[in-house]
């Protein structure tokens, strides 16, 4: 399924060999017509940049279809040159360049360049011994990235054969081996190559020659985990809700009565308990989920539906009951959040609106209000943060604006000054009602809601600047909580580290060591005082999914070791590695 360059038409290739054209109309699509149907499933499609032709790849051949007449104008067997080809050759990816060159990537590991009008093969590059699965062309059509089933991606460039000469040729240049499994999707941005594969990683590889200076963009980035909250915690009931793609799991945490020293594993007096697994109906993925702090309410939403459940804990048994007559929401909820007193539910929705539901005992709910930004907003809200006293609600929408609403009067309170970066986490301090904001470029802000301005600490941070090592981290802060015992402590975490930010301590400068906890331990008391700075970082965790404070001296941390799901992946393509 590919849209044309102007986005007015959509071409869809079908298993039966037909290509259907749909008209894109506001709010939906409309079937326009069928193009010439030939035998063989259509596996990939590409529009010509001028929208006059479509090229469709199938098994053993691809064809070029004239969009206006709907006729197949050229049909090229990709396997023609290979003698005694027993296996079928699957064209997995195809691209039609403006010059009339068709680039095909097939299961023999070849990237071939065809002149479709003549039907001749211009160049053939055998990039890999295994199949080439994906292909992306740069906007300027001088660079191509292909992904293969061995997890390697290859970069092809159109280079002049001779210095200053006009003759140009495609040359396979750099191979990248970032993935362990199939690379199913690749994209080519002006400055970077982006690839995603079956091994659940997204890799952004910047093109050094296109990046002017060393900056945030010039670093190779790998993403394994989504930057979203997948775990929610009922603090009072000590429950954890895990969101999987098709189901939810509710666990009761174990507990211990003993205390011990640093590094000791304490014996559990109560084992963690798997309470219930809730499967969602239909094929849709669960988009967001939440459990209320008291542990009696549970909600999740998929692309089309929103469900609310009442959790009954009677002794050891747990039962779920669906809350009837949940108001229909259109479009779906992007984020769910219960208020601290578990009496209301906030549902983030499209166009910057937040719906507020009142939860009724013994199992009902009522739509109370819809909060909307005053100026209107086209993007959906994706982050919500209610204050502990139930007075305020902060909502972040896709245009990175943070709106703060007063919940007592359901009124828009203010907007946090816009910062040109995506918000990765927000939280409202329970005692001071300061909103702490973490941006994806690792900047931290503190905004006082009652005073509608940045706090003085936040200003100091901005004037001093954060530590370079902190800014150069590549995974954003995904969750923020506060230490109830010490209001100056902010707990932050990203995928790899847990950080306690102590506002009372001085900020480190670039010469100081950012991660100094281990060195501090060895120092005597007086020297340690001098070395202390605001960031106390702990990196001992395996990939961190979630962290929250249960009560004053109990912190729950959810790890997700990479090996856990690596073992669940299908076997990668077997490759002989020299020297093993």
């Amino acid at each position, binding site marked *: 399924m590919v849209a044309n360059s102007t986005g007015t038409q959509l071409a869809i290739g079908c298993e039966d060999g037909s290509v259907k054209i749909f008209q894109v109309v506001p709010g939906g699509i409309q079937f326009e017509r069928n193009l010439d149907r030939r035998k063989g499933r259509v596996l990939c499609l590409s529009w010509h940049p001028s929208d006059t032709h479509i090229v469709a790849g199938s098994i053993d051949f691809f064809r070029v279809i004239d969009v206006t007449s709907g006729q197949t104008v050229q049909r090229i067997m990709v396997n023609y040159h290979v003698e005694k080809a027993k296996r079928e050759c699957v064209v997995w990816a195809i691209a039609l360049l403006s010059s009339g060159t068709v680039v095909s990537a097939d299961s023999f*590991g070849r990237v071939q360049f065809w002149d479709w009008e003549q039907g001749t093969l211009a160049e053939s*590059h*055998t*990039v*890999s*011994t295994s199949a080439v699965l994906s292909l992306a062309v740069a906007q300027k059509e001088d660079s191509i990235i292909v992904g293969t089933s061995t997890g390697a991606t290859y*970069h092809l*460039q159109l*280079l*002049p*054969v*001779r*210095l200053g000469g006009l003759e140009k040729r495609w*040359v*396979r*240049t*750099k*191979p990248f081996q970032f993935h362990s499994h199939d690379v199913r999707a690749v994209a080519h941005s002006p400055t970077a190559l982006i690839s995603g594969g079956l091994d659940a990683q997204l890799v952004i590889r910047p093109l*050094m*020659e296109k990046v002017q200076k060393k900056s945030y963009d010039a670093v190779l980035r790998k993403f394994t985990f989504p930057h979203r909250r997948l775990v929610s915690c009922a603090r009072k009931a000590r429950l954890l809700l895990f969101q999987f793609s098709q189901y939810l799991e509710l666990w009761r945490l174990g507990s211990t009565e003993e205390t011990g020293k640093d590094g000791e594993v304490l014996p559990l007096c109560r084992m963690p308990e798997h309470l219930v697994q809730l499967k969602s109906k239909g094929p849709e993925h669960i988009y967001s989920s939440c459990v209320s702090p008291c542990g009696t309410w549970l909600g999740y939403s998929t692309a089309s539906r929103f469900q609310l459940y009442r959790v009954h804990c009677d002794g050891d048994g747990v039962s779920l009951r669906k809350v009837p007559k949940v108001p229909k929401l259109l479009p779906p909820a992007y984020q769910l959040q219960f208020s601290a007193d578990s009496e209301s539910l906030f549902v983030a929705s499209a166009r910057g609106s937040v719906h507020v539901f009142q939860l009724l005992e013994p199992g009902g709910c009522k739509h109370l209000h819809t909060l909307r930004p005053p100026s209107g907003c086209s993007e959906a809200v994706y982050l919500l943060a209610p204050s502990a006293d139930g007075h305020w609600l902060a909502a972040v929408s896709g245009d990175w604006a943070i709106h703060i609403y007063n919940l007592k009067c359901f009124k828009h309170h203010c907007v946090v000054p816009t910062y040109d970066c995506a918000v990765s986490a927000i939280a409202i301090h329970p005692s001071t009602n300061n909103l702490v904001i973490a941006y994806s470029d690792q900047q931290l802000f503190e905004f006082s809601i009652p005073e509608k301005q940045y706090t003085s600490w936040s200003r100091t941070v901005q004037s001093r600047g954060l530590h370079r090592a902190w800014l150069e981290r590549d995974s954003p802060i995904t969750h923020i909580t506060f230490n109830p015992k010490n209001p100056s402590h902010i707990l932050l975490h990203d995928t790899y580290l847990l950080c306690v930010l102590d506002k009372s301590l001085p900020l480190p400068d670039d010469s100081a060591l950012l991660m100094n906890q281990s060195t501090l331990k060895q120092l005597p008391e007086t020297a340690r005082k001098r070395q202390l700075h605001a960031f106390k970082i702990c990196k001992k965790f395996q990939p961190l999914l979630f962290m929250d404070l249960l009560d004053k001296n109990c912190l729950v941390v959810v790890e997700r070791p990479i090996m856990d799901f690596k073992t669940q992946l299908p076997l990668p393509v077997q490759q002989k590695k*020299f*020297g093993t």
Partner: protein
Amino acid sequence: MVSPGALRVVRCGGGGQRGARAVFSADSKYLLYASGDFVKVHSVNTEETLLLLCGHADLVTGIQLNPHNHMQLYSSSLDGTIKLWDFMDGIPIKTFTVGPKLLALYALASAEDSVFVVIPKKGERDTFQLVSVKLTKGAGQDLEGKELSVVLDGVGASPKQIAFGREDSYVVSVKDVNLQVYFFKLKLLNRFSLSTAKTKGGDNSFSCVVCHPTEDCIATGHADGKIRLWRNFHHKKAYTYSALHWHHDTVMDLAYSLEGTRLLSGGVESVLVQWHNESSCQKDFLPRLGSPIECISMSSDGILCCTLHTDNRISIINSNLRFSRSIQGLIKSRDVKTGLVVDPRTKALVLNGEPGHLQFYSLQSDQQLFSLDIVQRQYIHQAGLKQSELVKVAFSAQGTWLATVEESEEVADPELQLKLWFYSEETQSFALNTRINTPHDNHITDMCFRDMAELGDDSLILVTTGRDCVFKVWVMVEDSDPEAHQSVSWSCDFVGSYHNYQATNCCFSEDGSLLAVSFEETVTVWDSLTWELKCTFCHPPGNIRNICFGRLTCSKYLIGATDYGFLCCWNLLTCALEWSAHLNIVVLQPDPLSEHIAAVSWLSKESSLFVFKPSEPWPIYIQRNLCKEKILLAAFVPRDEPEMISSEKYCWLRKSQLFFLTDTQELMTLSTKSLEERLTPSSKQLAVEESLPMTPFSVLLGKHRRQQAQEDTDLGKPVVHNKQEQASPAVKELLHTPAHVLPSASFLCTIFINSLLISKENKSAEEVADEVEMESEKAEDDSDEEDVTAMEQEDTSHMELLGEMTCKLSKSQEKELRKIRKMDYSWISAF
């Protein structure tokens, strides 16, 4: 210059090529490569050495064909000169003195009168620069080439680390992890560097570089075995490269095919890899080339390619990657442990060759006769792997038996094997007869055969000495087992020891009745019939390093050399020390055909040769400063026919020739003849003959000429024609000899005029008839005449080179030598 009468040291084989790529002549018939101080010209078809271009005083570092004249060759040397040769005739045309050491040479077609050389930068150690040298045009033969202009700084010292790109528009140099490209026209210098971090155990540093012949593409080889293909390198940032990876160790050299569609690479794996179209998936291999590949070069027509190997072998490979032939002289092995042994049957020199092999090297033809696999195990190239190595070799006097000892490299517990091989007449090779596992408990130090022709096979005895403090005597026994394949096998007969000392050397007397075995400081003499100890000698302090018996008239003497620098001669009849001398003897080698013994001493970085008779306490011949290198081994090789040597001093060379092997594995010999004589004239003829290419035109022309000759005879004008024919040798000589070696025109004039005159002798009728016949065989005659010219030419060059100095030097030298002899009487003071 040494007068022909005096002895001179002649390098006759071995030595290294030292990284300079070989060069094919323009017609791909000859292969030229630098070997030591010489440039060798080989015929590609016959594998023969045709010419040796000698004239450089130090190592030749680079050779290049003159791009403007394909019959000429530039060569550069560490002696700071560039020479221009006519390699077909072996004549130096010009010598340009540059001054500093020249490490590499590049000649470009676009640069009319300059070549590029790599020289060390003044005032800085280990930094080198690429400079262009303007070759001045002058009349004389010796010219100055002092006009230097620096092109690139900080280049590598190896000639493989610089390459010139398409149409000589740019030059690339690589060193460590840096690559620099200089564009001549744009005057643009681009530098790129790879990360120095050794990621995943790989080493990014560059080893060699070549440029694509038609496209702007640079191929670089790396220490971790990768080949990178660089493109777009005229952009500082948008440059890009792709990598090919097959080699597991350093890529030693790369070569592009003529069109640039194929890339050849070679390394330590001794596999030639051919990459097609820069694709990592399409590649061909030519494995089992025998030894690590050091250099690859392509012929100009792209039909042949040649690889130089680290062990001095040269392989010539077809364009379809099929092994064509190899030129192998003395194979360089890692360590010559066997010593120099002469095969009595073929008179070939026998020593370690390829790992685990024994090479038979023919001294006459400078070729390897064959290689005998002794260890019979696959050699795996890998650092730190313990290999079995051949350490000792001995032949019986008739060459029918060969004994070999191999041991694994482990020092503490060596795995020893003694193998006995019998020469089978049918297969014309050695066949394994007996294998003895662990013949000694520790390293075997020496081994020798006793056999006497008069006593027949029964007298054959093998003695081995070991560090386990015993010597063992092995004899042949009849195999009683009727099912055995062979009738005889070997087994141990006697084990002897002396005071629990380590046995170090053993030696039989000429008649075989006595066996001398040295045990550390003591030499013991045993009766070989009863195996009882006859007597002992020692000359403390110091362990015995070498022992040998005197021969022929001197067979009553036993000679020994000790660690503490003494050469002792004991009389076996009186059991007393006859004489001794203070000399640090490294090699002690008796001549099997005379009573002479050669001893090579090593003192203060020079080797000296002493030849003496045991009966006389003063040497017959002394040559101080034989060569700069340390001489490790020596051998007397019997001559096929005794050479006529007039001088009394060199009579010891009459029956056999002395060869030395230095620590750089160069084979040297002492010769009274000059070098040029050593090369057989026949090969020179070949050179002239082959220089006329067999083109369709020449065939046509030949036919036409023959026809014409036929017509001439038919017309009855044989006499006139014949006169022209007669005159032609002188004219031909005039025309064929290069202009710069010709005598003055006034001298030539008379000869020329004379040749045109009609000879006075009246020819008889028979003669005329004969001549008619001759004319029908004109083709052959022609070639004969050419032979004559070739010979003459050679002679003239000899005269020029050597003629003037002959008489003078021989006198003065004799005087000097006499002086030395007088002075050297003092060294026998220890007696």
